[in-house]
């Protein structure tokens, strides 16, 4: 059984306006999946369904054998699926870093000595161990978001869901988060990044393309970004380097291989 199974899930906030329609997929342990889609495609709703913040109107979400439809497994699911949101300012509860990271473990009744260990573990995982006593207000956006990730990691989740967690960050902050994701993947954490930055999606093992509440394509970054029709239908676009490569080809310049980044394009033109 897969670590995360989403079966025929539909959801709507208002009657007759479904935000998600019959969505199904599974994510294996250790995978990195990116969910891309335009604003209003249902990405954030999907993220909230994964850790039982929302319960599907129909269909099931099963995490590690626990179904979110079962009220008793609510906390079992939330412990296993950590959800990090877009605005770092709106998810930090405490005025001191260590207190904020402690919030999750306190909620599930972890003993004091172990909370200390978990804080150290979580802060080192995001490279913020030197900010134990700092006030989040004085940190940069990227640092705040790393604290938010640490706050979730302190619950020792198996799956980390990043719901547009880089949307409000500057490039430096985005790079910091990308680095954290890389480390976590190495440590075997399953990562689901919900994003509309194509370069972030590039680093995933698989990409789900969400459009108007439906998954219209699943595949490796290569497969997805080669499928221009689907991307267009989903109101998304290829990375800039890819579109430049396309333009070059249209102009009769021979560009060999797949181009997704500036490095790819440089290499492709050098041969």
């Amino acid at each position, binding site marked *: 059984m897969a670590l995360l199974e989403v079966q025929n899930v539909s959801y709507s906030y208002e009657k007759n306006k479904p935000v998600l329609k019959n969505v199904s997929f599974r994510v294996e342990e250790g995978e990195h999946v990116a969910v891309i889609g335009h604003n209003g495609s249902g990405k954030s709703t999907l993220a909230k369904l994964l850790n039982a913040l929302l319960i599907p109107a129909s269909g099931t979400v099963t995490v590690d054998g626990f179904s979110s439809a079962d009220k008793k497994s609510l906390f079992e699911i939330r412990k296993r699926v950590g959800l990090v949101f877009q605005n770092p300012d709106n998810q930090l509860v405490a005025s001191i870093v260590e207190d904020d990271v402690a919030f999750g473990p306190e909620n599930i009744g972890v003993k004091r000595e172990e909370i200390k260990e978990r804080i150290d573990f979580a802060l080192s995982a995001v490279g913020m161990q030197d900010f134990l006593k700092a006030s989040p207000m004085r940190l940069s956006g990227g640092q705040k978001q790393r604290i938010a990730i640490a706050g979730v990691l302190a619950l020792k989740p198996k799956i980390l869901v990043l719901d547009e967690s880089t*949307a409000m960050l500057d*490039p430096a902050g985005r790079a910091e988060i990308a680095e954290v994701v890389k480390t976590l993947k190495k440590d075997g954490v399953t990562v689901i990044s919900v994003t509309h930055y194509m370069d972030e999606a590039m680093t995933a093992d698989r990409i789900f393309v969400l459009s108007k509440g439906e998954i219209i394509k699943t595949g490796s970054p290569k497969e997805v970004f080669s499928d221009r029709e689907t991307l267009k239908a989903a109101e998304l676009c290829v990375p800039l380097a890819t579109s430049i490569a396309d333009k070059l080809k249209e*102009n009769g*310049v021979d560009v060999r291989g797949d181009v997704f980044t500036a490095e790819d394009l440089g290499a492709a*033109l050098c041969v």
Partner: protein
Amino acid sequence: MRITVEHLSYRYGEKDKNLTVPALCDVSLEINEGDFFGIIGKTGSGKSTFVQHINGLIKVQKDSGKVTVADFDLTDKKCDYKALRSRIGMVFQYPEYQLFAETVKEDVGFGLKNFRPDIKEDEAERLVKEAVELCGLNYDAIKDVSPFDLSGGQKRRVAIAGVIVSKPEVLVLDEPAAGLDPKGKEEFLQLLVKFHKTFAKTIIIVSHDMDLIAEYCNRAAVFKGGRITAVGTPKEIFSDYENVIDCGLQLPVTAAVVKTLKEKGVNIDCDFTVNSFVAAVKRFKDGGNL
């Protein structure tokens, strides 16, 4: 309207000398009428502090330089800020968070009524309608709707309509594409180009997006630690790789590729817009050299 900034410095926390952090340090810059000007730099490099001086949202501190916009002297205590602000529109990050009125019509008209208290109702409505439609929305369909009932993208357009309603000659935008998806961003940039062609003779854009700067701006200034380290065309700025990297910025895709090729001994001469890059590569290729 020509904008001239001479030896501008600014310190936050002026009252407590121990806490002062210089946000700007001896900055001089001229922005000409007609410029599509980019202000780039890392977070905290002084960009926002700089642009807020231009319409007097931040006042020039004592003995800290001079800011002149057309014939407004911003160091003069008697400077008419209202008149100045009616001619310099400013769009902040996430402008949709400044919406407040009960209807779209009222919200968009807010600035107009502040700047021209004696304006006639039908004249005001005509201008509001024009602004809303310029932003790509259907005025008659949404004029009486609460701005809070609109979608995210529509909210942002209404907020921008509320800034351009006074047809400012200078439009300053702070990270205007933040939070937009790729399609939304593209549409928004087209909107800016439209403004630039019609009423907004000068556009000043603060952004982290180097591809955007390379594509749209004719001139730009790079900020680092409250100082300007480079001013010029995107071509000049992004050709100086060391400075760009040193300021904690990335190269636009085109410039990054040109740099890679240069290291391999291939010189591509272009101004780093996508079209000029493609044309230059093609020229080179047709010469049989690549």
